[in-house]
């Protein structure tokens, strides 16, 4: 097992590649944040139906996994992974199409919001039931191995609450038995909906589970982009190199309600005031200003640029057609000759 107490970030200002990655990751985080802010507005104005789950506070962790994934890898994000999705290559057009129910979106109105993906491109579409994606990604990796493909990576994310599911346990155990190139990122944001860690598990820290599964474990400061990038680099490299599943445990706080309707009053003031409660996006921005010679103007320009793209894409998508029930095939089978007519 790797040293679970890694905390201090590399001095990346010395290293232009790391620096470049940091900047790239920041920009994606910013995009995710601004996009989700727009989604909140759209939700409040009734343009989005269904739950809206925000990744606010979790962008650094999410993006840090995404930036190390390559075309051909498998990625199964969860509800708070807008940043990781963008890093993996999702366009904001597809995000908005799905949330706004455009028939041109990848889910064509059949599924919505966070339940989107393009499985053929390695971007899996989560189902709601927590835990199940771990074994699904593992199966994909097993398939690749059976075909003799190497260097592939699979990655998925889950929350502290999701680790209590039997499905998570079975999936991670199987991945460990098969020594698959899998990275599982656990975002411990201290709560599952309103339920605190103390009612979710009894170990001192979820990192203690790694040993029991026989997988490498890493502990990371979830709102420190530098730390996230460093640890995810180690974990993704180790998995790709054939060292079996890597379990990354991040501590952080969700800086929003569980979903749009939740005011998260159960989060204690002490937690909000603690280092966990700091906003990863602000921290990264401060660091860029401090250590990267970035200027306020530059960063504000990004902000404007991204917002312009979000606005224009929203306008475009709002004009797109909704799915037409009359045009629907209303069949759930891929095999045509088995499709019963009504």
């Amino acid at each position, binding site marked *: 097992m790797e040293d679970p107490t890694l905390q201090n970030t590399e001095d990346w200002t010395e290293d232009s590649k790391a620096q470049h990655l940091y900047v790239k990751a920041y920009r994606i985080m910013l995009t995710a944040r601004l996009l989700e802010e727009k989604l909140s507005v759209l939700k409040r104005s009734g343009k*989005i*139906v*269904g*739950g809206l789950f925000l990744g606010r506070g979790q962008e650094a962790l999410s993006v840090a996994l995404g930036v190390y994934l390559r075309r051909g890898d498998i990625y199964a994000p969860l509800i708070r992974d807008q940043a990781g999705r963008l890093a993996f290559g999702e366009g904001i057009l597809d995000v908005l199409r799905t949330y706004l*129910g455009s028939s041109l979106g990848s*889910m064509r*109105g*059949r*599924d*919505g*919001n966070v*339940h989107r993906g393009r499985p053929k491109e390695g971007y899996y579409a989560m*189902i*709601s*039931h*927590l835990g199940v994606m771990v074994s699904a990604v593992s199966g994909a990796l097993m398939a690749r191995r059976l075909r003799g493909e190497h260097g592939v990576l699979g990655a998925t994310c889950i929350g502290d*609450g*999701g680790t*209590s*599911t*039997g*499905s998570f346990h079975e999936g991670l155990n199987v991945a460990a038995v098969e020594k698959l190139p899998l990275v599982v990122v656990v975002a411990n944001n201290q709560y*599952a*909906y*309103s*339920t605190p860690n103390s*009612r*979710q*598990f009894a170990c001192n820290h979820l990192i203690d589970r790694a040993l029991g599964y026989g997988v490498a474990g890493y502990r990371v400061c979830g709102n420190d982009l530098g730390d996230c990038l460093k640890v995810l680099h180690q974990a993704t490299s180790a998995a790709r190199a054939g060292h079996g599943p890597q379990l990354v445990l991040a501590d952080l706080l969700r800086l929003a309600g569980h979903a749009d309707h939740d005011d998260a009053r*159960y989060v204690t003031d002490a937690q909000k005031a603690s280092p966990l409660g700091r906003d990863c996006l602000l921290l990264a921005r401060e660091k860029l200003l401090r250590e990267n010679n970035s200027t306020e103007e530059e960063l504000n320009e990004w902000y404007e640029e991204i917002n312009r793209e979000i606005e224009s894409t929203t306008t475009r998508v709002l004009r797109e057609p*909704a*799915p*037409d*029930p009359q045009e*629907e095939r*209303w*069949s*759930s089978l891929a095999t045509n000759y088995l499709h*019963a007519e*009504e």
Partner: protein
Amino acid sequence: MNSITYLEAIRAAQERALEEDSRVFIYGQDVGAFGGAFKATKNLAHQFPGRVIDAPISEDAMIGMAIGAAIEGMRPIIEMQFADFSLCAFNQIVNHAATLFYRTEVPCPLVVRLPCGGTPGSGPFHSQSLEAIYAHFPGLVVMTPATVEDVYTMLLEAIEIDDPVIFCEHKFLYYHLKAEALPTTALPVGKARITRPGRDATIVTYSAMLHEALVAAEELRKDGYEIEVVDLRSVKPLDTNTILASVARTGRILVVSEAFPWGGVAAEVIAHVSSEGFGLLDAPPQRLNSKDTPVPYHPLLWGTHRPTASTIISALHRLLKL
């Protein structure tokens, strides 16, 4: 109280059960201080300290816990956050809870509360109607209340019953459905109710579809038809007597259910009616279910996927001409 919602009736029934029966406790995700995802346990943790307990995201263990507690004589109520998640506990429910009394003669009195059914935008994983698959397994009682009054009295009865009860609440009714006061009398579980008497055809239905059916029946009155509407209330046991008596009066039956079509409540009711009441039928019995796909996310697709007053009206017109 001025106007009580379906959801509030659920809360009130649980409050009363906790108050009157020390064997009752509630277990589920976020049911404690938070009061549950839909607020069906609002304030109860405060009113009944230690008896409204937050569970980890472990549906299988939630039911396992309830089984052990039930064996020990308690009356656990398990809240699933959505009915769909109960499928993660399917094995414990159908293989453990449901078989316990048959195998050991020890009762297993637990209630699994399932927020069921579709609402716009809820999509494939937060919309399912699962009454049929639970009813298929011996040893379970499956209730599907359609009114504020029923959801209150039936939940109280569910808690009293010595068997595992799958209590299907309909999320679409949570806030929309209102009553003036909580009922003081109850029709026992196992008895269907003739919600609207009629003469020309019978609609058999339950849960949220009752209200679509009533709208359709009212609409057909304009054309001079009197449609009888039977609310099953529980789908297992199924009150075949009331159904047959209604068909005896009307000669025609349409069964309406929001669930998937293959082998659900509608098929079961029609199988009974055509086997046992063949001679009563003036026309082939008909059914209307959702389409045979997952429940779609988009409200426009969803509105076509499930039966509505308007598709019920069409089905009735067809039935009346058969």
